[in-house]
Every structure is written in C-alpha cells, then in structure tokens.
C-alpha cells in the first residue's frame, strides 16, 4: 500500500432533490453523505450495498453523469470534474452500465470507434478501424469476435466484452462495472472474470458493483460497503467474510412505525402453483391468506415484480397455475382480475400508476369506473364523492380534487395510487414498493393504511426492497432470487435483516 491511489473520492455528498431537480439541503435524508472512496492501480475494488444505498449514484458522479453537490474527485492527485460521460472517458474513466450501451444495429468496430471514426480523405477507413478493433480485442485475449459482426448478433457476454474494448480504446485506466454478471450464464461469467484478471495484470483498475457473494472472493482485492448513502468501511481481501459483510450492509433499526393490529386468517386467497417466470427458471409456488400481509424480499431484478405482473396478467408466464379464492384463474388479464377483486399497485408510479395530467378525482376513480358507472355514462358527482372519501381517509394533501396529480408530492401521489386501488374493493392487494421515494411521515400513514386493509380481511402481497418495512409489516416473507423463490420465512423471530440478506445474495440455506 505504499503506492498512492490512482483515484480518490473525498466527501462526496448528494442531496435529495425536489420535483424540479433543486437540491433540498436542509433535509436529514441524503442520497450520498460525505462518501470517501479510493482505488489503487491494478486492483478490483468491489462496491456493495442494498438497493438504494447510493452505489449507483456514487458511480454516476464518477462517470460524469451527475454532478456532486459537495466533495471532490481526484485522479492521480489532481481534481477532475467531468461534466458528461465523454469528459470522464477522456479523463480515463469508463463506465460499463448494466443496460447495453451499444448500438445493436452497428458492427463491433463501428461501435468501438463511434464518434472518433478513423477517416482517410474524408471517407471512413473501414479496414483500419477493423484492424484496430481486432488488435484491441486480441490484446484482451478475445479472438472469437470478428470486428465486422453486428453487435445484436453477439451474446450478452460478448457485447460486454465489446463495451470493455470500447472503453479501453479510450486508454481508460479505470473501468466501472455495474453488476456486469447479472445477465450472464456461468460460462460467460468465467470468460469475463478471466478478462478482469488480465486487465488487472495490465494495471487497469476496476470498480466492481455486485450483489453476488460468490463473486467477491473470486475477483475482489478490496471491498467497500455503502449503506444509506454513507461509506461504512473497506475490507481487505483476507477479511472477506459473509457475516462481516452482511453485518456492515444492514444496520438500520426498526422504528415504532410498525404497530400492526391485523391478524392473519387461514383461508388462502391466492395460491400460485409451479409458475415459471421464464422457460428455464425454477417453478414458483406460494400462497397468501385472507387478512395476511406477505412480504416479498429480494433484489431488484430478482423476479418479484415479474411474479406480481404475471399473476396480474401483465406479463406472460411459462406454465403453472394460479388459484384465487379456491378457483383456478384460466386466462389472466388485468381488466378481468380487477373485476374479481385483484389489484396491483405498480412500483413505477409516474409511468404506470398515474395519469399525471389528470386531476386527483379522475385518477382515484380510474380503476373502478366499471363498478361506479356500469351504464356507460359518467356522473361527476359520484366521482367526486368517492375522491373526497379517499382523500380524507388517506389524508392526501391537495388544494382541491381538481388539482393535477403532476403537481403533488411523491408521497401524496403514492397515496392516490393506493386510493385508486382501494376504490376497486379488492380482496387481494399486490403492492410493489408501496413507499419508494416518499418521506417518513407519508410512509407511516401508508403503513397504517395497509394494516387497516389487512384487518378488513384483504390479502396483501407486498414487494419491498426496504428491509425494515419488509420485516415490520410482513406476517410471512418469501425471498426471491434469480426468478425463483429461494426461501420462505414464517417465524417472526427469523425475520432478521441478516437472514433475509443472506438469502438474497445467495448464501444457501
């Protein structure tokens, strides 16, 4: 450790911002709170943390995608402030995103040289670009990707290799990899790891974001943990240990927000038998009883939302049966299911949950128009009556019922979606991240409401990435990973953050 680190990030702070993008500095909640991070030459530094811990935000700051509110980034001891991805690239920092950052309809060499095409007498010098691409790939030890192939004809792993080649062509010495293995098969992962070893030997430094325990020891030199926007600590390779890492990742305490009064019943409302989300994923079986709140734990992308959407008929599934109140549901589609009393509250309130340019009353009545106005004509009075009831019941803060939903705060928008779902008189309520991105006060009110709903005998399925919420609200918890349920936790005593986290990141039971 005599060498000076190639990269240092000091005191990076990012405040939460309002709907106009203006930083709210006086809030106690921060996305990043004085985070320090450093990277040595030729090391793989792993960054871990729960969803929303601030990993992605920190890396976006480094990659020039968002500016920090406070703090500085030092590269080779000099302060840099990349304003966009291009400036970061030119400074030598390449970002390999989780989602594909290539043009699938172009060839490998066209992608590598996008924006810096080699030109001879005004005309693209294709052969030179191909030769250079081949050379780049060759240096990486990759020989099975011809530079003239279209990117969309490559496998996901090969596409990632092309992205790495593109980044290396900018002479990047630092590569950020955001969950690079999340869509790779085991064989492809091996290829990627071999490449990482090679890059490390060449002196390239890699920041590796991952949730997979088994990968840490395989590729990592050091490991840093972020939690709630703060750096918790950094471990050397010899100290890598599941229990230590998990203990660092968790740590929030449960408040008094979860005073539940509902008592779970015994007759099942929803029963899923051997449902497959994809052709090759393991079958899922689960059930939810009346008056029961069942939590769905797991990482984003583990298949929780997909399971909810499959049950709700938004999404295709590959075999399996769904029983609702003892009867098998043959064809699943949202319109019918709402009439039967199943309703799904989406995780994406702005694009799937609300019509932002309609007013409060219209949004609330939207899902239950079929019930309120069965005879084709609509009457404003009845709609307002429902809206008034909902607004007072859920304590929505709005100027009037005709205020546009776009102008409301996140918490109030969330309450309106919940109100919309409740207006359908559901027997089964599927909640997907019901408190994402809203303040503590609104959270507490939504928890109280969910408790009341369960008390009235409604079965509730609650997908949540917020551990305290998951533990505090649930009567039972299923943990999902890789499109399948990997654990069912029935005993309240076993519902610890450590326990759930261990299942989510792949410790075998």
């Amino acid at each position, binding site marked *: 450790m005599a060498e000076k680190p190639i990269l240092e990030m000091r005191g990076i702070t990012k405040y939460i911002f309002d709907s106009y993008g203006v930083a709210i500095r006086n809030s106690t909640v921060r996305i990043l709170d004085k985070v320090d991070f450093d990277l040595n030459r030729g090391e793989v530094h792993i960054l871990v943390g729960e969803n929303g811990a601030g990993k992605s935000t920190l890396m976006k700051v480094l990659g020039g995608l968002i500016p920090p509110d406070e703090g500085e980034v030092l590269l080779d001891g000099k302060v840099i402030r990349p304003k966009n991805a291009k400036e970061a690239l030119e400074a030598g920092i390449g970002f390999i995103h989780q989602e*594909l950052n290539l*043009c699938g*309809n172009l060839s490998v060499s066209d992608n590598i040289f*996008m924006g810096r095409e080699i030109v001879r007498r005004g005309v693209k010098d294709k052969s030179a670009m191909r030769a250079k691409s081949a050379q780049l790939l060759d240096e990486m030890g990759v020989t099975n990707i011809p530079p003239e192939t279209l990117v969309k004809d490559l496998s996901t792993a090969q596409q990632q290799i092309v992205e790495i080649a593109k980044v290396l062509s900018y002479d990047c010495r630092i590569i950020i990899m955001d969950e690079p293995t999340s869509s790779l*098969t085991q064989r492809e992962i091996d290829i990627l790891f071999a490449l990482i070893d090679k890059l490390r030997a060449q002196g390239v430094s890699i920041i590796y974001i991952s949730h997979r325990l088994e990968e840490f020891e395989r590729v990592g030199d050091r490991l840093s943990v972020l939690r709630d926007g703060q750096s918790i600590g950094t471990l050397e390779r010899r100290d890598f240990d599941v229990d230590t890492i998990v203990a660092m990742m968790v740590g929030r305490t449960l408040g008094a927000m979860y005073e539940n009064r509902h008592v779970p019943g015994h007759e099942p409302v929803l029963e899923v038998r051997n449902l497959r989300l994809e052709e090759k994923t*393991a079958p899922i079986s689960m059930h939810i009883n009346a008056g029961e709140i069942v939590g769905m734990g797991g990482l984003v992308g583990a298949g929780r939302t997909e399971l909810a959407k499959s049950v709700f008929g938004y999404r295709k599934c590959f075999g399996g049966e769904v029983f609702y109140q003892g009867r098998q549901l043959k064809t699943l589609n949202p319109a019918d299911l709402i009439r039967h009393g199943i309703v799904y509250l989406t995780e994406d309130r702005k694009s799937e949950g609300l019509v932002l340019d309609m007013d409060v009353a219209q949004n609330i009545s939207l899902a239950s128009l079929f019930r309120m106005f069965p005879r084709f004509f609509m009457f404003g009075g009845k709609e307002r009556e429902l809206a008034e009831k909902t607004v007072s019941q859920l304590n929505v803060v709005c100027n009037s019922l005709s205020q546009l939903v776009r102008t409301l705060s996140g918490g109030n928008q969330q309450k309106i979606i919940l109100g919309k779902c409740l207006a359908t008189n559901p027997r089964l309520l599927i909640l997907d991240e019901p408190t994402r991105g809203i303040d503590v006060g609104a959270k507490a009110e939504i928890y109280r409401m969910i408790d009341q709903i369960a008390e009235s005998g409604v079965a509730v399925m609650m997908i949540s990435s917020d551990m305290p919420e998951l533990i505090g609200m649930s009567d039972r918890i299923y943990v999902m990973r*890789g*499109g399948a349920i990997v654990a069912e936790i029935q005993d309240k005593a076993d519902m610890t953050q450590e326990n759930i986290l261990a299942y989510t990141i792949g410790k075998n039971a």
Partner: protein
Amino acid sequence: MRLSKRQSSIVTAAAVIAVFLIGGAFVPNFLKPANFLNVIRQCSIIAICAVGVTQVIVIQGIDLSVGGNVTFCGMLAGLLLGRGVPVPAAILCALVCGVVIGLISGSLYAYLEVPAFVATLVVGQITQGLAYLFNNGRSFGGFPKSYVFLGNGSFLGIPISDYIMIVFVAAGIFVTTMLPIGTRIYGLGGNEQVLKNVGIDTAKIKLFVFAASGFCAASAGVLLAAQLDTAHPTQGEPYQLDAIAACIIGGVSMSGGEGKVIMSMVGALIIGSIRNILNLLAVHSFYQNILVGVIIIAVVAVSMFSRLRSESKTAQFTVVENGGGR
C-alpha cells in the same frame, strides 16, 4: 423466425421479379420498351424522394412533408421560369428552398422535440398551401425546352431522369456507408444515448437528415415538373405515400436503425410498376391508393409479427442452479 438481412433482400428482389412477370403475363404492353422506359422514368421521382425518406425513418423519424415539398418546389421552379429566370437559377432556387423546408421541420424535431410526424405534417400542409397561392390554384406550364429535356430527354436510350436517380441513390449509398455521419445516422436510430455518451451532437445529425430529405423532395419536385411540362399544386401529393411505401417495401424498419438506400430504390421500382400496371388496366387512382395502402399494411404487419415473435423469446433472468429449494 425473423428474416435475416440477406433473406429480406432476396424476398424484395423476388417481389420485383414477380411484379414484372405478372405484369408481363397479364397486362398487354407492360413489358414493351416504350412502356418500360415510362415506368422507370416515373419510378425515378419516387426513388429520389425515398433516398431522403429512408434516412429519416432510419433515425426513427418520418417525413410527411414530402408531398408538399415536391409540389412547392415544382411550383416555385414553374413560377420563376414563367418570370424568365434562367433554368439553372430557377432550379437552384427551388433546391435551396427544399433544403430550407427540410431544415424547418428538422429544427422543430431536433431542438423543440416536436414529434417528427407533427413537425413534417404541418410543414407539408404549409408548403402545400403556399403552392396554391403561387398562381391562385392554377398550374404553370410551357417551360423552356432545356428544362423539359431534363424530364423527358434520354441519353443512350435511357431517360435523363434515371441518370439523376442513379446519382441520388449513389450519393445516398456513399453518405450512409462511406462517411462517418452515415454510421452516426444508423447509430442514432439504434441507440441515441450511446452517441450522446461519446459527446456527439445528435441534434445536428437530425438536422442534416431532414435537410437531405428536403433536398431530395425538392429535386424530385423540379424533375416532376420537367417530366410533365407542368407544375400543378396537387401533383406532388401521391409521392408522399409512394415514397414511404417504397422504403417500407424495401425493408426499412419503422422502428429505426435498419434499411438500405438501394433497397428503397427497389421498393420504388415495385411501387412504380404496380401503379403503371393499374394505369394500363385503367384502374382509377382512387383504387390505386387503396391498394398501395393495403400493401404497406401487409408489409408492416408481416415484419412486426416476426419481430414480436422473436422478442417474446428473449430471457430476462439468469438461472439459479439450485433455485426453488427451500
């Protein structure tokens, strides 16, 4: 299964042959030399428009101002010629106007982020309206000989119009395949964010593409007026549909990023031949439009269907080897 590029080229080429065989077998006069020259002369207008429209569709846009632009620039050339402006100056003036029209819809699209169909539809309507004003809704005619020769003359037995078409198609191929901006045009249609991430000003590319389409439409308008020896305020209208149809039949993907200029020219040949066959069979132009519309729907439906089927198969999860166990 989705058709590969080569397969779809073969299908399109087969369609050309099929159209010609069917036309030759059932329609008297279709394959006679005089008619054949007529067909390829008419096709040149569609093909020149399609060169520009292809690139607009590749960047996920659409150009609905082609019809208005063709009319407007033809009328403008007619107006200037009528006032005694020399032929080259009148043509140049019309072409510059076409580029400006393209730049207007391009700016709306690139800088104000107006959806392409709105921007170009409006610009197309305005140019169409202005074209009526040039001569109070009447046409211009009686152009100088040199101008008419451009449309109806021939060299080595092939119409001048088709030489011009070949120049446009060749230029289109050159720009899209040999120049850096060509790669960026296709890249823009594939994934705009990638270009932005490496610091490319994508608005400029959009502007270029719309200006190029405006230039193509203006050239087609000038050439059409020369072919007909008339500039009439409705004569550009059918080329709107035909230019888009040519692109779609030629395999340009409406979702962007895919399509070749040369194949759009082949598409133009197919559309032009179908129109000619229907003319020879004395089918009224009303019915012709219905048929062309149906052909577009059929081609789009087939390509979307094969796309949907291929997309539904892509997997989202990695498989957990020991998943499902409790």
